[in-house]
């Protein structure tokens, strides 16, 4: 190793390998992604955010929300559940059989064998896919996050730290705009013991004019402004809330399959 050039070239190749692997390859593989089809429906996913929600992502970025919140649901496994949809011609035999079988928390093979046994005596069954994992049992989401969830985000705010809960599916879990506004202005007014810093700078406390503003927050007394004043959200606060409400990662996709509850209940009557 006497020659600087040879070190340079060898280092160039070694370092360039990771550039090809982690920059070029993902850009080629994921960079051309388009909307995908939602499983078992004619819908495409994801849909563009509304104007306010798109601006809200910029409020989220500017205030560094990603320093404390992630937007990625983890999934560690998948379980199967066999659900009886029709007893068929021999209901007694089916119900006797079912009482002897384990129908939830199955592996693929167990689900298939239970399926075969019940079908053999004339029962009709459906197999449901239930993603498992700590995030899903916390209720933060229904399935793992995948690349399609972020197709229209720029910048993509995945985050790396959970000082607060995950927000990937926040719009489904917390779908109330006035709750979000109260939570941003005074987190402890809606979540006791919340350690989230209040974002009062996104709101304006002003004297009530001729009539109270329809936007004014309905705060509990210990957080309320002095009498004669009202707290109204600035446009940024409304945009941020629109963004939070637009966070949905709850449709089944090919790469993250699961059985949504509503499809079996909302299926049209025969």
């Amino acid at each position, binding site marked *: 190793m006497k020659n600087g050039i040879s070190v340079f070239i060898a280092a160039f190749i070694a370092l360039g390998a990771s550039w090809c692997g982690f920059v070029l390859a993902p850009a080629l593989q994921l960079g051309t992604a388009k909307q995908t089809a939602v499983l*078992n429906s*004619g819908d495409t996913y994801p849909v563009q955010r509304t104007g306010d929600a798109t601006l809200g992502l910029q409020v989220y970025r500017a205030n560094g929300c990603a320093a404390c919140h992630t937007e990625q649901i983890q999934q560690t496994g998948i379980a199967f559940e066999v659900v009886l949809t029709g007893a068929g011609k021999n209901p007694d035999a089916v119900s006797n059989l079912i009482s002897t079988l384990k129908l939830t928390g199955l592996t693929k093979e167990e689900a298939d064998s239970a399926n075969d046994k019940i079908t053999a005596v004339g029962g009709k069954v459906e197999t449901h*896919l239930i993603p498992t994992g700590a995030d899903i049992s916390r209720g933060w989401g229904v399935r793992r996050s995948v690349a399609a969830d972020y197709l229209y985000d720029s910048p993509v705010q995945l985050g790396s730290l959970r000082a607060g809960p995950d927000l990937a599916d926040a719009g489904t879990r917390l779908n109330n705009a006035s709750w979000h506004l109260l939570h941003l202005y005074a987190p402890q007014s809606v979540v006791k013991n919340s350690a989230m810093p209040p974002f009062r700078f996104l709101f304006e406390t002003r004297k009530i004019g001729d009539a109270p503003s329809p936007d004014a927050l309905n705060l509990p007394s210990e957080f309320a402004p002095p009498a004669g004043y009202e707290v109204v959200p600035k446009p940024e606060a409304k945009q941020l809330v629109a963004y939070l409400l637009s966070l949905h990662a709850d449709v089944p996709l090919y790469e993250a399959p699961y*059985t949504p509850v509503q499809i079996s209940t909302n299926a049209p009557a025969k």
Partner: protein
Amino acid sequence: MSDETKSCPTPSNAEPTATRSTVPMWVFSLTLVLLFLGFVYFDHHGGWFDERVYGPYASADQLDSYQPKSGAAAAIARGRKIYESNCGTCHGADGLGKPNQAPPLAGSEWVKAKGVQRLTHIPLMGIAGSITVESQTWNLQMAAMGAALPDADLAAVLTYIRSSWGNGMGEVTADDVKAARAAIGANPHPMSGDEMMKMPE
């Protein structure tokens, strides 16, 4: 305190040198063993660069086997979406049809036929001329609305139509649609009800 900051220049003013003792074999062996284990791990968890395989799924085959089967409920849900955007404007979301626009699908003998061949041909070729539905004659045009849909989607929408609004008939498979397409060939032309009756159910 000040003495070591003062004293260091003397021994260390010379540039450092390095000895030339070699790296022992066990370090290389360890590297090779770890590389092998890494390969095994990647084989089990890497999905071999497939863009649709995400953890915890191990491979494209496994993920494929986990997809909800094209069972009745799944196909019906999907068929309804396609029906509402493609067929519902004329035939109605309730399948009852609209006067002077389209005949009903609910209870229609064309839909409730035992075989699916005629039913499959209608969206692929369209209708021209008179057609009798539930003993009422309709004289309208229908374009080949389903010709542009993929086989699976057309099958899903036909399954939805056959199983909805009290029709209570069975599934139409993608293979049925494929067979009909093959029978029509490259030259689709709209048919009248009478022409269609010549075809087997």
